[in-house]
Structure formats: C-alpha cells, structure tokens
C-alpha cells in the first residue's frame, strides 16, 4: 500500500456523513415539469436532470472520477422507497449523520410535494385490503413485520449513487457491453430500432417509449462524464504539482472519451466501469459481476505494451475500494437494527471457469485479493468461485485475506451454482457466467435478475403450527387450523400437519412477493439497467416488464430451518419414539419458555442436533429443505416462471429469532436462530468442522439459488501456509460433495471474551496451542485468559 492510498484511507475516518436532498429536489422538479408524460420517460428525465445538474467534485489524490452524492461521503435521500419522518431524521442526527437546518426544512416540503408516491404505500394499498395477507405481513413471517399501511416496516432510505433507485433488486448488467461498445453505440442502436418501427403498426407504443428513455439516459451519462472532464481540466490548469497535473489530465481525457466510446486501455475501462456502477447505485446490492474477466483484456493489452505495471494496477484497485466504501447507505431505525448500520453488498465475483469450462484465474484475480488484504477496507465484497481446477495458490491467497480477519472472500462452488442454472433451463455456457448479486444470490449477467426476496421465518411458521395456526405473538389467526398438536398420535401425523401449515404460509409468502413484483414494475422502470440486459433494444422492454431467459424474479429465503429440523428431531425422538415426555408437557414447557422445566430443556438440548454428522437429524433437515424448495417451485411468479428458493440468513436470524417463541431444540423465546442456512445452531456442533460439512452435504443444495455456511476458526489454525493449504482442501472436499458456499470468520479477542461469559453459545470454538487442540470453553479460566491475550497479540 503506497502513501497516497494510506492518506486516503486516513481521510475515510469522518465523524458525520451528510444527508443530501439534491437528488430529491431535482427529481421533484422534473416530476412537476413532465406531468402527463409516460412514466418511463419521466424517470429517464429525472436521471438526466440529476446527471446534468448535481454538484460534482474531484477530491484530493483521487485517481479516477465520479461521486455518488452531491457532497463528499454524502447520502442522497431515497424518496421513492419510503418517507423520512421527523422522528427518523432526529434519530439519524443522533447517530453519525448530519443534515443542515435549511435542508431539513426543505426535506419536509419535498416530502409533502412528493405525496407518498412510494413503493411502501403502493404495496400497503394491496396488502392491507387482503384479509389473508394482512395478518401475514404484520406477523413478520416475512421480515421485517409491517407496522402500518403507509409506513411499512418504518423509515426510508438514504443512499449514495446517481441511478434511479431504489435498486433492491439484484441485477448483473452487461458491463462488457459498456466497456467495449459504449453509450454512443447503444444510442445509435436504439435510434435505428425506433426508425425501423416508426412506420410499422404492429410495434407498441411501450417499445417506443422504452427506446426513447434509453436514448435519454445514455446521453445523460455522456453529459455527466463530460462535466467531469471539464472539471478535471479546470483543476489541472491551476495545479502546481506536475505529477498531479498529469493525473488530472488523464482523468479529463478518459472522461471525454468514455463511457461514450469503447474504452481503449485499462484506465479508461476502469473509469467507464465506475460511471456505469454509479448508475447501478443507489443499491445496497449492486453487483460488479466478473470484474477480473471483463477487465482482463484491457489489463493484458496495457501490460504487454508496457503501458502499465502491477503496482499501478494495484493502486487503482485499492483506490476502487476507497471509492466503493464512500458509497453509503442508511435505512430507518428498525432496519438499522436488523442490518447493523451501513450494511451493503457490492459484490465482485472472481475466479471460476470460463464459458468453455477452463480455469478463469488471471493476474487480476490475485490483485483484487491483494488490494483487499492491503487496505483492510471491508467493501467491496469479493466472492471467489471455486471449481475442481482452481489453483491451490489462489485458494491460499484468498485464505491469506481471510486470515487478516476481513471476513472475505466468500467461497462458492461452481459446480453447484452451474447446476442450479442448468436445472432452470439455461445453457451450460451461459450458466458458467453466473455471478453474485447481493450477498450470494446467483444471477447471470444480462440474462436474469431477482426482484423480490421474502425473508421467510420457518421457525415462526413452526411456532404458529404448534399453536394450531394462531400467531402466538398477537393471538391472531395467520395460518390454517392444522389441529391441536397434543392430539397427534404419531410423528408422521405431526410432521404431515406441520408441512401442511408450512405449505399454506409459503403460499402466502409467494402472494406477498407477487404484490411487490407488480409494485416494483409500476414504480421503478429503469431504462439504464434495462438497456444493459440481453437483446434490450430488440425486446424494447423494461427489465421488470419482460420475462427473462431465466425467470429468477421472485425468491423466498428460508430463515431458521435448522432450528426447526433440530426441533422436529427432538420431538420425534423424545415424544414419539422414546416417549420420555408427553406433547402436553412439551407444550407447557415451551409456553413457559422452559422456566421451571430446566431438566426437560436439558433433555431437549441433548437430543440429536444438525452439524454432527448424525443421520437421524440431518435427514430431517434435508427433507425440510427439499419440501420448501419443491413446494415453492410449484407456485407462479407474477413475472412468469416459478418461485425460486434460497437460504441465506444474512442477519435475519436475529430478528427472526426475536419473533419466535421457545422451540423444542432447547432454544429460548426470542433467542437468535442458527445463522446462514447450512450452519448448525451455535454451540450445537461438537465434532468440529468436518462433521458440520458432512451434515451440510446431506442437503440437496443444487436446487437452491444460494446457501450459506459460516465457519469459525481461531487464528491458531490459520498460522502457516500449510494450515491454509489444509483449509483449502477442506473447502474443496465440501464442494466436491455437494456444498455450495462457505465463508470463514476468524475468531477475535471479543468473541473469546464472550465465550467466557456465555460458554453455552460458544462450545464450538477450538483453539490450538502448539500441537494440542482443545475446546475453548472447557479450558480453565487462567488458560483461557492466556489464549485471549495471545489472540490479541496474534502470537498463537
């Protein structure tokens, strides 16, 4: 890391992030001026007004240009998602955000003008009028629970990025097209198509409007780049330092040329990419796709020509991380708690196989990892695609980054992801192009996108089933009456009744997703992103208004399924097989949150648990996951196709757990659920990492859009290169046997301190002390203290 990067990283430490209203102001202005015009055209004009008029700046030391808000570190109020009320603004000001008094006053004026034309109120209209859906969406079976017709789950969004928000949907656009063809070519293609359909009667007005809007937004991005070219030139003209002057002139030249025209070198490609990315944002889930692949031809060309060296490329990639972390995001109070602050998932997918199945690793793959390792900046995210021939050196390089405690990259399995897309009808070649959009959600650039992901709390569905369809949190009937569990005589009967309840609730989840899909389609036509989808000009449709080659639009994500599997196993064993407890006693214990039933709780805690390579419970987990996926695969998505299932908890195992009562796996009411989807409940795996993997391999993960396995290691297991090599063998073994994803957390001092206080939650931490391994929680206090001390000093 050079001095310039260090300086810029130091400057990242700011006290307050300014909330900005400039984008909101410009949008409101355009909306007033364009009353009566087709909505997609109005949206295009909003973007055009923003790109032509928003305040721009180039900061000290910056290597390429383009900011995501009107002020440095700024967040533009995202007017279309929800309204920022006074109490929400007040709460933001108490945290690390600021807004000037003048702008705050103007915000309320803008709010009134905008008059709640937002996604939440549109969905609220439909959901609150439906007798079955209202108790469903307020229950929190899909997180977060709705609090009111107009407020949704509460709060709005403020985010950096200049595109048309909100972009909660997950899309991989065709960056390659932007880099190799440029906006002028897209404009001319749209004009030709308009010309072609002008006289024909068969073509719809919709297509004409779409093409017009594509032309408007691409002209706008060119104008935006030209503004930066001019600004860079102006600053350069007064710059005294000759090196800096040259840098600014390089920016000016690049911005004059891209993204209008095809990029001619690595630097222009990077500048073009960045402008494109700024228009994909605001979105907490923007995907950069296979960056190491589409940037490679530019890198290679410059490298061969001696125009650039790896130190310069590394500096640019490190600066890219600095640029990325300046793209901020904040949501309402309730969501802030759920997502711990400024969470975002800007994912760069690296490695994997090429379209023809060869190893795709190249120099950029390594350099991107190195940039993360050196800067220690947590964004952007990296996901490494792994296949049978992924070089062990690359795995080791990735694990060196893991070892620093940065928590990335995540490792995903080509075989399982490719199989998922193949199952859904895509060709092998196209399937090999898959990328991570959002966290681990697979999509194919330009061929598919995900619009609604309902976070479905399976454990709450189980709780509702245990109460015969009633939501125990408010005594409202949310499900169907599947009978009193105390009357169920066999485990088969019990399980069948639960599955029936689950199927009904999943059905409602699918309906709720469809309401969102239709509202998104109505509110968020996005000509820029749409123009970078496959055959966009020929199709002439917005990306939310066309059936994609693979319809990945409606997704349901399971939360807490592992707790339910553990619960089913405990009931099967203790109530029905061993008959140690009656269902009546169990229900009483659960309703009492185990208070007064400590011995019973111990018994249920000791029942078979997922994560220990125990077929008894693992087969129940596998069956449950299969049932959810197969049930949803029968249900229609409003965009065509069927509902797709995924299983990544992100942070929802916390709010999901908060809504779920005590469960027969021994969990207490409100306690956090198992994280991820393939991870065991915390503290329940007692046989180490290989047994966890063996359990996870019994679940058919190929049918899922994504799964998530979190593993924890103490730094002492990651010390030498040999340790890292062995860990990469562990990953490869998992992936050869059906795993889809794994990521690693390096245990830190704080976790170990927590483990001293609540050992029952941390039974799985293994520490190695020179040739001897032990479970941390069984060690005596003195030794624990010493391990903690050594962890901090990284001596272990």
């Amino acid at each position: 890391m050079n001095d310039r990067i260090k300086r810029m990283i130091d400057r990242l430490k700011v006290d307050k992030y300014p909330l900005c209203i400039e984008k909101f102001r410009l949008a409101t202005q355009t909306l007033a001026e364009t009353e009566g015009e087709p909505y997609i055209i109005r949206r295009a004009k909003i973007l055009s007004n923003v790109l032509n008029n928003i305040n721009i700046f180039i900061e000290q030391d910056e290597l390429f240009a383009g900011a995501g808000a009107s002020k440095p570190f700024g967040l533009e109020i995202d007017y279309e998602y929800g309204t920022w009320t006074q109490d929400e603004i007040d709460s933001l000001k108490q945290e690390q955000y600021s807004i000037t008094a003048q702008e705050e006053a103007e915000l309320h004026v803008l709010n009134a003008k905008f008059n709640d034309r937002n996604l939440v109120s549109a969905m609220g209209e439909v959901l609150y009028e439906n007798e079955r859906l209202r108790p469903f969406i307020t229950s929190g079976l899909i997180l977060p629970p709705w609090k009111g017709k107009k407020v949704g789950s509460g709060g709005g969004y403020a985010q950096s990025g200049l595109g048309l928000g909100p972009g909660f949907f997950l899309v991989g656009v065709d960056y390659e097209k932007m880099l190799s063809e440029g906006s002028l070519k897209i404009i001319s293609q749209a004009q030709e198509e308009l010309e072609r359909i002008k006289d024909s009667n068969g073509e719809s007005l919709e297509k004409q409007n779409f093409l017009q809007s594509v032309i408007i937004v691409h002209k706008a991005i060119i104008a935006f780049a030209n503004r930066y070219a001019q600004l860079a030139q102006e600053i350069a003209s007064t710059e005294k330092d000759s090196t800096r002057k040259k840098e600014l002139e390089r920016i000016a030249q690049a911005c004059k040329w891209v993204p209008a025209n095809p990029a001619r070198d690595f630097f222009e490609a990077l500048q073009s990419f960045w402008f494109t990315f700024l228009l994909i944002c605001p979105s907490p889930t923007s995907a950069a796709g296979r960056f190491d692949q589409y940037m490679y031809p530019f890198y290679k060309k410059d490298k061969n020509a001696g125009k650039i060296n790896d130190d310069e490329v590394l500096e640019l990639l490190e600066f890219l991380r600095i640029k990325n972390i300046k793209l901020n995001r904040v949501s309402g109070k309730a969501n802030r708690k759920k997502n711990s602050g400024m969470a975002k998932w800007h994912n760069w997918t690296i490695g994997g196989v090429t379209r023809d199945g060869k190893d795709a690793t190249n120099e950029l793959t390594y350099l991107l990892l190195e940039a993360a390792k050196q800067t220690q900046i947590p964004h952007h995210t990296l996901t490494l695609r792994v296949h049978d021939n992924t070089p062990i050196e690359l795995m080791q390089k990735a694990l060196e980054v893991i070892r620093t405690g940065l928590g990335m990259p995540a490792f995903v399995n080509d075989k399982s992801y490719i199989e998922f897309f193949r199952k859904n009808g895509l060709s092998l070649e196209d399937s090999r192009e898959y990328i991570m959009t959002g966290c681990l959600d697979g999509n194919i650039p330009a061929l598919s996108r995900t619009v609604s992901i309902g976070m479905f709390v399976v454990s709450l569905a189980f709780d509702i089933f245990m109460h015969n369809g009633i939501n125990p949190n408010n005594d409202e009937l949310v499900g169907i009456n599947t009978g009193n569990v105390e009357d169920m005589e066999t485990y088969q009967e019990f399980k069948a009744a639960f599955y029936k309840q689950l199927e009904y609730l999943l059905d409602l989840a699918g309906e709720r997703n469809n309401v969102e899909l239709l509202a998104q389609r109505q509110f968020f036509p996005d000509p820029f992103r749409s123009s970078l989808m496959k055959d966009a000009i020929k199709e002439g449709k917005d990306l939310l208004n066309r059936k994609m080659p693979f319809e990945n639009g409606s997704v349901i994500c399971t939360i807490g399924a592992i707790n339910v599997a553990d619960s089913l196993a405990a009931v099967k064993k203790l109530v029905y097989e061993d008959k140690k407890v009656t269902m009546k006693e169990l229900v009483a214990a659960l309703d009492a949150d185990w208070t007064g039933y400590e011995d019973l709780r111990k018994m249920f805690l000791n029942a078979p648990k997922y994560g220990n390579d125990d077929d008894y419970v693992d087969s129940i987990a596998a069956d449950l996951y299969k049932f959810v996926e197969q049930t949803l695969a029968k249900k229609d998505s409003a965009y065509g196709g069927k509902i797709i299932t995924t299983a990544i908890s992100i942070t929802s195992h916390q709010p999901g757990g908060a809504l779920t009562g005590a469960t027969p796996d021994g969990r207490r009411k409100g306690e956090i659920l198992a994280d991820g989807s393939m991870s065991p409940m915390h503290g329940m795996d007692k046989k180490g990492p290989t047994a966890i993997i063996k359990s996870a391999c019994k679940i058919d993960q190929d049918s899922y859009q994504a799964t998530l396995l979190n593993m924890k290691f103490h730094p002492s297991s990651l010390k030498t290169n040999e340790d890292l090599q062995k860990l990469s063998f562990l990953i490869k073994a998992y992936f050869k046997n059906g795993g889809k994803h794994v990521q690693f957390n390096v245990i830190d001092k704080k976790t170990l301190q927590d483990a001293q206080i609540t050992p029952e939650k941390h039974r799985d931490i293994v520490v190695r002390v020179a040739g001897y391994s032990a479970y941390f929680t069984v060690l005596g206090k003195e030794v624990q203290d010493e391990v903690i001390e050594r962890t901090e000093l990284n001596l272990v």
Partner: protein
Amino acid sequence: MENKRIHDLEEIKGFVFDIQHYAIHDGPGIRTTVFLSGCPLKCLWCQNPESQELYPQLFFSYDKCTGCGKCISVCTQNAISQNGSVVQTDRNLCKICGKCVTICPNEARTIIGKEITAGEVLNEVSSDKMFYQESNGGVTLSGGEVLVQHEFSCAILELCKNENIHTAIETSGYGSWETLKNVLTFTDLVLFDFKHFDDSEHIKFTGVSNETILENAKKIYHELKIPIVARLPIIPDCNDSIMNIKQTANFISTMLDKLIKVHLLPYNNLGEQKHKNLEQSWNGFSGTIPSDKKMNEITKILESYGLSVKIGG
C-alpha cells in the same frame, strides 16, 4: 481381509480419551487424531495428565462450580465434600459412576475417557474419508502412549489400512521392540518424540531411560524403513539447552537421516491447569512459554545440521 478377522478386530476394546477431527498438526493432510489413554512416562511438563491413567477419570472445572452442592446429594460413595464454597472429590472413593456429572447444572463435571471398540473408532475415523482423500490425510493415533494398549492400537491401525486410510502414530518410542514392531506393521508414518538426549536427564524428567527409545528410533527408520518425523517438545530449563539441542540434532542427522523433518513443540501450560482439574497433587513444575527468539535460535541450530524444521506440529 476376511470378514471374520475384521469382525474380531472390531470387537477389541480399549480406552480413548478424545477423538479430534480436522487435526491439522498431527501429520500430513487433514487427519483424525485418536487419543489413547495410558502412559508409562511421567513427564514433569505433561500437557495431557488426563492421559496418564488408563481408566476414565473425573474432570472437575472448579472455576465453573458455584458450590450448589447438588453433586454431594447424589454421590452414592460419599466421595464429594464441601468446605465453604470449595467442593472436593475424594478420588479414592469415587467410582466414576457419572451421577454428579448429570446433575451438575453448571457443566463443571465431566468424565474423561471411555471404553470403546476398535470398530467404533473405525466408524468415527472413516466418516472423514472424503477429507483424507482430498488432502492426502488419514488417522493419527496419539496418547498417552499408543504402545500401552498395543493390541487395541494394532486393531485400529489394521482396520484403517483395510479401508485404505493413511496411518500415523505419535509415540514416545518407549516399549519393547516386539510390541512396537507389531504396531508398526500397519503404520505408514511415525511421529517420534525426542524428549532429552542425555539419559540421566531423561530419567529425571520422564521417569524412564531413553536407551530403548533411541534404539527403537534407529530400528524403525533403518530396519523397517518407515518414515519418521521427529518431534521435540521445547521445555525451558529442561531440554532447551544448546548442548541438548545439538546432541539431539546430531543423533537425528547422523544416526537417522538428514532428510528427517523436525517439528518443535513449544511448551504450553495446559497441563498445570489440568492437574488441578483432576484434583491431583501437582509435581511443582512451573514452566514458561519459550519466546519466539528462543524458538528461532533452536531452529537455527537444528538447521545447521542440515535438518528442516517447523515450529508447531
């Protein structure tokens, strides 16, 4: 192998005090390490004092004990007593029935070690086959001392070999050649401990002579031609003198082979704690953890004899 022989081997019983999966410091690749109970040595610095006895033992985490006294009420031997908040178990009276373990609400009491069959060990070990295949790993028998339960060790190793699992043993080398030879019939790699080169010092620190040990090392390597990894526990003020390191290095490089890899295992004080957990009287040994500087110095000496050295297993 014939089914009957397999069956007979699977029935052989022995005492195991731990089985660790994903062991990455006990030989090549990803391994499962089986810790067998019983050890004829009494090393002053022993890090696994729970392994010295063959039979299961009560392990008492005194810092988790709240002094609630529930264990006292269930003990049929009247072995447990309480003085203020201090709970003690008379190890002579305790029959390891486990009643106090079940009743303890704070998980302060566990039983270490259990009797299981070689077949059960094989099941546990072979469940990780997919990881051995990927990493060229396998099973490592450790202890205690694997030669103490040599029939049991032989059975496990033979069963593993029959399943094509790579086998390693970690041994002090202390045992009759006949016994060792039997165990080695089904062993692919030996992790051989060198505790001290000087015999009188060896006796002082471990309770036994190293004469047979050194003889056995030579025979394993030269007669049986089984690869050896030398493991040197580095215990400050016991065996970390330059003289001892040099003598050991000289023995390994001249009497065995320069190609032998040396693993240095720096002392840690786990054992001291565990003695308290076993409510044993402590031998008074108090070690310090060797500094990185010291470890590097020792590494350099060994390297000057042409040996390749790694710190940690």
